[in-house]
């Protein structure tokens, strides 16, 4: 019986416990983290249960909220596309929570901790809800919950965070309103808000201009939220100035959930025949992606702030996912979906490392990382794993999704996109080598008098275990995802790609 309720438990448990966090935190701040941990664990458990149920059932499972039939009520749908993403969201948010304890203690005043954890939990609730819902308007409401909590937890960061949070409010509202306009344009011509119902109703109306405009605004809205190239301007500032835990939470999850919504939109609400054949939507997305990747590479090379460099990297990674969508074939889309999950782990890895370095040294400038490998060897080891994965070195997961993306572009005969993909991998290698060089290699002159095993003044000064363990688990996750990517594709993602490909 409980297994039947998994889809809703994923979202509702963190929601109801987030109300407790605020009240309990008012009395004693120590209970905040355990409550959040319990909530997210139940979510993770339910998400794994849902994944199992989907595999056992062999297709999408519908859950009717309030027991109303879908076009009238709201339904939750779990299928092969969203369950792996749900599991990844819940897993990463638990790790970031464990990571957050010490980092937040250092970066925030004590009186703000209960509210911070309330918003943390609400944010994860929103992201999980976006992923699981099957109703276009419900998605909007959840998007707003996720965005509001994101505005708030970004705004309490260091100097400059408040202003970038305000810019994020403005951009985020444009994005959400554009999404709502898209829903409205589809609603006025179909009269329905349910995604599956829209999927059935829309083919008759594919030549209506209202549907085309609706889709365009959908894409713009989701694009702003996920930070693809021309709409990314809010992102680097916001994620750089946010507290390091917050960027470790939002950077991996929020943008990727946006990418998921885009795939839902293009292939569940609309049919592939509309978004690829009738109008050159995929073509346009491909060009935007290529431009975005080039732009992101150039901008990332110009940064000396570690977090800001990663932010531009996200813009590039979003471009990869768009390339997978734009190549419009089975291989490319497999790569895109796999890359959503892999990129969550990769970005979580990089941003937690940035947070750890920030915790110990209070500095993010990559030119001041000298001797860091003696000070924090494990942190830098994790960083190297993440870096190799982003560059695309075989045992790590980043290689496999990139492999599928490249195969997809070859099959679609989109040579420019292929060139961009390969070139950007090279640039990523340069990018990360720059950091590794600064952290690992020692200047020649000083090396001479430190021949007996290290500079005397630099001793081991690693971050506490509560930060190391999540980082190591993420690094292990990257390697395991890489090793088992064949299994994941064969049993899950293969079925997530629409059948018409």
């Amino acid at each position, binding site marked *: 019986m409980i297994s039947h309720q998994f889809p809703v438990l994923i979202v509702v448990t963190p929601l109801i416990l987030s109300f407790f966090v605020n009240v309990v935190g008012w009395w004693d701040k120590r209970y905040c983290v355990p409550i959040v941990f319990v909530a997210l664990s139940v979510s993770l458990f339910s998400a794994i249960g849902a994944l199992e149920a989907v595999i056992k059932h062999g297709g999408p499972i519908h859950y009717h909220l309030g027991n109303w039939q879908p076009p009238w009520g709201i339904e939750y749908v779990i299928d092969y596309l969203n369950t792996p993403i749900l599991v990844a969201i819940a897993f990463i948010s638990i790790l970031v929570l464990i990571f957050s304890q010490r980092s937040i203690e250092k970066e925030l005043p004590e009186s703000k901790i209960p509210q911070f954890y309330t918003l943390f939990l609400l944010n994860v609730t929103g992201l999980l809800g976006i992923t699981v819902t099957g109703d276009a308007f419900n998605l909007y*409401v959840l998007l*707003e919950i996720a965005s509001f909590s994101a*505005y708030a937890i970004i*705004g309490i960061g260091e100097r400059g965070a408040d202003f970038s949070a*305000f810019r994020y409010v403005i951009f985020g509202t*444009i994005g959400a309103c554009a999404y709502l306009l898209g829903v*409205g344009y589809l609603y006025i011509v179909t009269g329905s808000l349910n995604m599956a119902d829209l999927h059935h109703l829309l083919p008759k109306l594919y030549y209506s201009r209202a549907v085309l405009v609706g889709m365009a605004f959908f894409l713009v809205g989701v694009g702003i939220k996920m930070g693809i190239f021309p709409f990314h301007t809010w992102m680097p500032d916001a994620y750089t100035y946010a507290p390091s835990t917050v960027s470790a939470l939002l950077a991996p999850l929020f943008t990727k959930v946006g990418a998921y919504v885009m795939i839902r939109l293009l292939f569940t609400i609309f049919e592939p025949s509309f978004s690829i054949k009738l109008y050159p939507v995929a073509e346009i997305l491909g060009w935007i992606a290529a431009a975005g990747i080039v732009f992101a590479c150039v901008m990332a090379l110009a940064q000396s702030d570690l977090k800001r460099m990663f932010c531009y990297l996200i813009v590039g990674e979003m471009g990869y996912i768009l390339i997978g969508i734009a190549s419009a074939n089975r291989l490319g889309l497999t790569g895109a979906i796999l890359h959503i999950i892999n990129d969550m782990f990769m970005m979580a890895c990089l941003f937690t490392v940035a947070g750890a370095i920030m915790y110990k040294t209070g500095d993010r400038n990559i030119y001041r990382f000298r001797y860091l490998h003696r000070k924090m060897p494990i942190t830098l080891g994790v960083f190297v794993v993440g870096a190799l994965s982003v560059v695309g070195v075989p045992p790590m997961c980043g290689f496999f999704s990139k492999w599928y993306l490249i195969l997809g572009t070859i099959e679609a005969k989109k040579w420019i996109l292929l060139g961009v993909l390969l070139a950007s991998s090279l640039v990523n290698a340069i990018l990360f080598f720059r950091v590794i060089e600064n952290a690992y290699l020692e200047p020649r002159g000083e090396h001479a008098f430190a021949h007996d095993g290290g500079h005397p003044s630099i001793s081991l000064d690693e971050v506490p275990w509560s930060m190391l363990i999540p980082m190591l688990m993420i690094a292990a996750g990257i390697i395991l995802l890489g090793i088992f990517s064949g299994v994941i594709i064969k049993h899950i993602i293969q079925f997530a790609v629409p059948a018409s490909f």
Partner: protein
Amino acid sequence: MLEQIVSRYNYWIYIILILIGFYGMMAKNNLLKKLIGMNIFQWALILYYVSIGAKKGGTVPILSEEAGSPFEHLKAIQCVNPLPHVLMLTAIVVGVATTGIALALLIIIYRRYGTLEEDEIIEELRR
């Protein structure tokens, strides 16, 4: 053309409002004015949705219990569409919440930088 405008004038008005709001959001230098532009933008959307719900000759979507037992005979055509109204209740709440958060942010910004002009804040941040 004129018939096109007259028969859909609500939608034209909402687009004009969106134009104003969007311009305010993008072009104004003062952050509070940006916020006002954002509010106009959101309320324009609400006008749009409520316009969808309208029906000529439709009455309010509330049944009155006094007049005999009219419940069985009610046809959909007699009442305006309640769904957009419900959706817009949500959107109104979202709008209020956005305004609240943005105002709180503006108070912090003003405390920290002593101004609400965007270019002055950016200059202050560069320093």
